[in-house]
């Protein structure tokens, strides 16, 4: 406890809109040790990015506000700091890598100016020192002939190189924690692999703690030590990476895993999408948030929300938020590979999805069907 780098307790971030209060992050608790890598996984709109932005207090305010909880980073509560102190942490101790490298670099400033900005701000380097360090950083992230590219503008870089620049910016002050918010989503697959490789190596080399946010379980699989699965603003399952893939305990996680295409699967095996849409976070369901889409649901799921609890016949630090898989539940022995769920429940969900107004289906953040990437 004392040595933890980051300790988030009962974090609530809400957005006050005209339609009501959106409970984007609703009681999230987790911790991170120095040098540890953690994956936050979940579909769009489940609160992953808002969690990350909350950690740096970057929630746009208004309409957003962190209403409850504590974020203790390196022994200090980020939520109790004044603006200057928070700015001292941003970029210095906690850095962030954004999703889209095409838009997160300022188009009218040269690469070197953007990278050296944090150096000048936090490490109080002068111009020539910052420039030297910038060259080192660009070398480090694998930008060829860094010295010559230094005064280029972002439009002269390709997407993958820009993401490398973003990583260089994040690394510039040797932060203790890097938040990577879908760092590879905007890149094509080969570049994705390179960037992930780079991140992994750098994390190991500098013993930087990472929080990797993604909707792609494939991305976190090789990258992180632990994975937290989020759904509807809450963490629904916590486990070691290996444990989560070997022995997932939450029907939502099962759904995510089923919707990933696998090379070793039989050719005719179909991907199973998760039917339905993520819950409305203005008025979330009173029971389990996943209940409306869960193919294993029972009455109790609708009535009471389960707690995040230790799971029987799993590793000790494996927790899940599910009535079915908790002590004495009806899913304790279910093999998720075989049993897709109660067929009647599936039919019911399908009907509900069909009854949704067409517009919601189109605009919904998760298209319910197409197989290639059904998770998002």
């Amino acid at each position: 406890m004392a040595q933890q780098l980051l300790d988030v307790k009962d974090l609530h971030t809400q957005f006050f809109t005209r339609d009501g209060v959106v409970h984007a992050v609703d009681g999230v608790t987790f911790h991170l040790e120095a040098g540890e890598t953690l994956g936050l996984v979940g579909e769009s709109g489940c609160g992953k990015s808002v969690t990350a932005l909350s950690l740096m207090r970057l929630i746009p305010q208004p309409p957003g506000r962190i209403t409850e909880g504590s974020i203790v980073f390196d022994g200090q509560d980020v939520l109790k700091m004044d603006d200057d102190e928070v700015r001292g942490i941003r970029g210095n101790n906690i850095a962030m890598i954004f999703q889209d490298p095409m838009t997160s670099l300022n188009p009218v400033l040269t690469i070197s100016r953007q990278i050296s900005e944090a150096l000048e701000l936090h490490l109080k380097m002068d111009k020539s020192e910052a420039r030297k360090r910038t060259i080192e950083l660009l070398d480090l992230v694998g930008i060829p002939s860094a010295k010559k590219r230094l005064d280029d503008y972002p439009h002269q870089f390709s997407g993958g190189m820009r993401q490398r620049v973003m990583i260089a910016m994040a690394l510039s002050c040797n932060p203790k924690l890097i938040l990577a918010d879908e760092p590879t989503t905007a890149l094509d697959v080969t570049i994705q692999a390179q960037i992930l490789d780079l991140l992994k190596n750098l994390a190991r080399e500098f013993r930087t703690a990472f929080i990797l946010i993604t909707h792609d379980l494939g991305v976190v699989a090789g990258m992180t030590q632990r994975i937290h699965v989020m759904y509807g603003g809450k963490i629904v399952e916590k486990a070691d990476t290996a444990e989560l893939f070997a022995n997932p305990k939450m029907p939502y996680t099962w759904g995510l895993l089923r919707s990933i295409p696998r090379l070793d699967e039989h050719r005719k095996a179909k991907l199973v999408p998760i039917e339905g849409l993520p819950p409305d976070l203005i008025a979330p369901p009173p029971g389990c948030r996943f209940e409306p889409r869960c193919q294993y649901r029972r009455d109790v799921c609708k009535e009471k929300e389960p707690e995040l609890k230790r799971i029987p016949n799993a590793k000790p630090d494996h927790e899940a938020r599910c009535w079915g898989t908790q002590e004495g539940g009806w899913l304790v022995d279910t093999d998720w590979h075989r049993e897709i769920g109660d067929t009647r429940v599936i039919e019911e969900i399908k009907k509900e999805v069909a009854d949704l107004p067409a517009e919601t289906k189109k605009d919904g953040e998760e298209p319910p069907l197409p197989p290639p990437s059904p998770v998002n």
Partner: protein
Amino acid sequence: MATTAVSTRRQAAQHDLAARKQRSLWRDAVWRLFRNRAAIAGLAVIVFAAFVAIFAPIIAPYSPIQQNTPKQLMEPIWTRWFGSQFTDSGYLLGSDELGRDILTRLMYGTRVSLIVGFVPVAVIFIVGASIGMVSGYVGGWVDNLLMRFTDIIYAFPDLLFVIIIVATLRGTELGTAMDGLLLIFVALAIVNWVGLARLIRGQVLSLKHREFIEAARAIGATPVRIMIRHLFPNVLAPVIVSLAFAIPGAMLTEATLSFLGIGVRPPTPTWGAMINEGFIVFQATPWPVLLPAFCISIILLAFTFVGDGLRDALDPRMKI
């Protein structure tokens, strides 16, 4: 450095690319500007005018205020070939009703026009940019307050507002300083910063939610730093264009004020005042009116051409 292994192979391939000469946004813009003939012609006129303004005391044949009563109302020298008897080879462009050399007065008038073009616009730039930037970036009640204030000023008809300010303050110390030039600066600045402030606010509003601004906040940059270092360079292009058009506007307003007799105090020569004085003798000879009017048109046209050129050069998307 384990990671550089991937890149070593690509290093050779990209070497050529990196070795090519850099072209920044600004260099591109300058290149495009210089390909625009009208803009070049405009620039040439402006440079010439600036030259004349700076060296007026050296190149002007007479003093701009010295009167020479026997030589009143001389006509330009070329009218001689059309039968005019009132020409004097000492007065190339003729003289006015007090016998002052028109060429000299036009040269000195260039000074006033250019100063009136640039000084108030510099003030407009500073005031408008800071108010627009703060208003757009900070938002909330600050934005509301500043923009309502802007709206109030915007609601007045421009020229009328300038005339009101100048007419009311003419007798005060402010009105007499620098032959009344200072008051014109102030009046022009007060009236004209609103347009620029609105322009910048609009740009900032659309830019501030872009990811690179969020990224700047994520590295711990202060709001002031974000405004100056990150937002400002992004709004610079439309601002330059808008200022380039503000300059002829300011010149024209000064000419109008001087024409109405509430501009720069006589006997300081300005083109507007020359037209005003020329009107008295318009029946006798049109030249004291025509020549300064011609100068005003040319300089306004020049600035407008440059403004157009800048707009095309700085916004490549507008061209197809």
